[in-house]
C-alpha cells in the first residue's frame, strides 16, 4: 500500500461507480501464515488447515484498493463492513475488485466509501465496504477512529 508523505492528494476526481482495480489475486500459504502470526491467531482454521483467514482476504483486497487510491499518509479508517460467503483455500485465485461507492466532503473531511469483492467463479467469497476519512487540511484535522 502506498502512502504519500504529508502531501494531501487530490482525491476529488473519484466518482461513484468508478472501478479502482479488477484483477485476479490469491493469498499464498506464506501470506496466510504471515497474517496469522501478525494477528496472533495461530489456532487451527475453522474451515480446515489450508483455509485462508477471512480477514487476510479482506486485508489483501483492501490493500490493493488503497494502493489504487494512493491515500495520503494519516488517512483514517472509520467504518468497515464485511460479508464472508465461503471459505477460501490458500493459493486459490479470486477475481478481486474495488469500486467507489461515494466520495463527499463534510466539515473539512473527505469521506470515501469503497466496495470490494473477492469472487471465486460464481460465488462471492468476500464483500466488503470501507469508509475512509481524509482531512482536507494538514493532518492536525484528523477525525476520531482508527487509522486506516
Amino acid at each position: 500500500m502506498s502512502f504519500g508523505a504529508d502531501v494531501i492528494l487530490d482525491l476529488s476526481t473519484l466518482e461513484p461507480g468508478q472501478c479502482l482495480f479488477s484483477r485476479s489475486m490469491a493469498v499464498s500459504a506464506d501470506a496466510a501464515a504471515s497474517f496469522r502470526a501478525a494477528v496472533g491467531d495461530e489456532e487451527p482454521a475453522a474451515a480446515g488447515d489450508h483455509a485462508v483467514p477471512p480477514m487476510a482476504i479482506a486485508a489483501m483486497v483492501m490493500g490493493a484498493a488503497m494502493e489504487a487510491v494512493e491515500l495520503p499518509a494519516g488517512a483514517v479508517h472509520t467504518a468497515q463492513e464485511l460479508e464472508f460467503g465461503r471459505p477460501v483455500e490458500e493459493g486459490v485465485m479470486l477475481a478481486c475488485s474495488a469500486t467507489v461507492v461515494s466520495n463527499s466532503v463534510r466539515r473539512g473531511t473527505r469521506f470515501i466509501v469503497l466496495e470490494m469483492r473477492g469472487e471465486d467463479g460464481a460465488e462471492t467469497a468476500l464483500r466488503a465496504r470501507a469508509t475512509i476519512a481524509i482531512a482536507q487540511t494538514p493532518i492536525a484535522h484528523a477525525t476520531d477512529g482508527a487509522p486506516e
Partner: protein
Amino acid sequence: MSAPPASLAGVAHKVTQAQIAKYAEASGDRNPLHLDAEFAAATPFGRPVAHGMLVLAFASELLAHSFGRAWLCGGKLRARFRSPVYPGDVVTAHGTLTSADAGQATYRVAVRNQDGVDVITAEATVPLTP
C-alpha cells in the same frame, strides 16, 4: 444447531509495536501513522497506533472460534472504529446476543481496551445451520 450462546468472550491481545510492524508487512498497509513515531507525533494521535483492520481481526477471530465454518459461510460484520489502539494496549473482543430467529443470530460485538473503552463497536450476524 442448539441455541446460540448468549455471550461470547475472546482472548485478550496485547498489541505491540512489533505486532503492528508484522501486520504492516502482512497486509501491505505501511501508513506511517502506524510505523513512524516522528510522523505519528505530529498527528492528533500523538504516537503510532494499530491498524483498524488488525484490531478488527480480533473480533473476527472471536466469531470464527465461536461459530466455525458458519462464520466463514455467511457471516456479516458491520463495524465502526471508535478509538485508536496504541502499542501496549490490551484489547479483548466480546459479543452479546441481541436476537436470534430460525435462520440467524445477531450479536452486538465490541473490542474493548484495558480501560473499558470500546475501541470498535460492531453488529455481527451469523447464519444458524440446522
